[in-house]
């Protein structure tokens, strides 16, 4: 769940780095900015980051990826940008 609206949306951008198996299954989904996760005053970042990470897990397995390009999509970084 992501609180959207009055907060400065840019500050709540979250990057999730994922590792995929060749059949598209998500093997790992990691919040890139770990430093902000447990910092006090960053509860909203944590809320947004966890929501983004859950979205990635929920989407597993990713389908329709071109198998011959696996080495290029084995690792992807998703950047989640809250709507302003």
């Amino acid at each position, binding site marked *: *769940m992501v609180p959207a609206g009055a907060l400065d949306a840019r500050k709540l951008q979250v990057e999730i780095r994922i590792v995929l198996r060749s059949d598209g299954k998500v093997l790992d989904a990691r919040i890139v900015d770990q430093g902000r996760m447990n910092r006090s005053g960053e509860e909203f970042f944590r809320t947004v980051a966890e929501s983004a990470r859950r979205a990635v897990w929920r989407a597993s397995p*990713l389908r329709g990826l071109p198998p011959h390009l696996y080495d290029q999509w084995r*690792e992807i970084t998703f950047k989640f940008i809250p709507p302003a």
Partner: protein
Amino acid sequence: MTNYRRYLVPLRPTFLALLLVAAVGAPAVAELKIDITRGKVEPMPIAVTWFVGKGAEARLGIKLANVISADLERSGLFRPLNPKAFIQKPEAMQVRPRFGDWRQINAEALVNGTVERLRDGRLKVTFRLWDVFAEAQMTGFIYRAPPGKWRRVAHKISDEIYKRVTGETGYFDTRIVYIAEGGPAKQRVKRLAMMDQDGANHRFLTDGRDLVLTPRFSPTAQEITYLAYYQGKPRVYILNLDTKQQEVVGNFPNMTFSPRFSPDGNAIIMSLATEGNTDIYVMDLRTRKVRRLTKHPAIDTSPSFAPDGRRIAFNSDRGGSQQIYVMDAEGRKAQRVSFGRGRYATPVWSPRSDLLAFTKMQGGRFYIGVMRPDGSGERLLAEGFLVEGPTWAPNGRMLMFFRQNKGRGVDSGAIKLYSIDLTGYNEREVVTPIDASDPAWSPLIP
């Protein structure tokens, strides 16, 4: 913040394949990065398992889970899963859940716990909240309480879950005071009544002999101020809900309306009519001195302090029609802030200070809406033949109000309470034994 979104990665096959081909087709791509800018309003699936206990505590464990599930569901932000779908039994996961079992039923969060009776008679309740995908504990607490307080323990657990998942304070361990109405239209009996936020533990606080109106909570204590007619004259009362101690704070010779506490609980702001003119006054509860804040030939009423106590919103017809104004705490620099079509009344400042809730009348319909304190960003959340009396949940994300229906059938003319969240999508009736109006939402119970 106006609403909640959950991210959904738009990973339908064609979309992502195209995106990837485009991305990897470009030369010199070191690392594939994809921006996701769309969210979706959708509640989070959560499994609230029954709390494990022995004997009578086993039954209580089921009731705890039911109260927590109902709290979370009514918030509109969670979708509790049907316990019949649970694969792993709660008794089997006291060490660590089998997360695969919970992923299989699409639970994204999981709640488990225990309940036992201590030797001194109190209950000991433990709970844990788990992130099913990350396979990690998100939070956990232990509570000890007298058995009669088990519902409060459940609400406190709901508050912790809400806080941990949304990043905002909860509002479940709270209560509602309202006006219970009964009898024929010409001889309405109005009594003060109180209940938990979810409608449980309902009781009447007055016997109905005197007409009571407009209960309002202190923002700092389990205390209300309200208006009651004694021998035909309005008096302002304060009632402590825990000690049941009641006192008259003012016996005003003329009409008094809409008393409301200041943010520190040390003053009451209200409107008084003198010589046919209604203005706003503030009374210091320690000295009992009354000070006049507005002096205007128009009708100034329904004052409400900002949470920092430095500004006051009120409504006035000084501009020709009833509109919302904001002034400083000394009654100076009044500025009109509502400029939409129709009339605006009863502004109520959000405890988070970011919004004013109000009642609006336009085209024969009533609306409950919110706007920023400068009047911008007006949004109407609820409407009806008659909707009035917005009151904020202590976290400023939910409102309660009352609605009277017009029409035929059993519900014709019935007056009921409703809650609605700031998205305007999650409206729920708050069930009361008889007709109900003018709700007041308490701060979190300490």
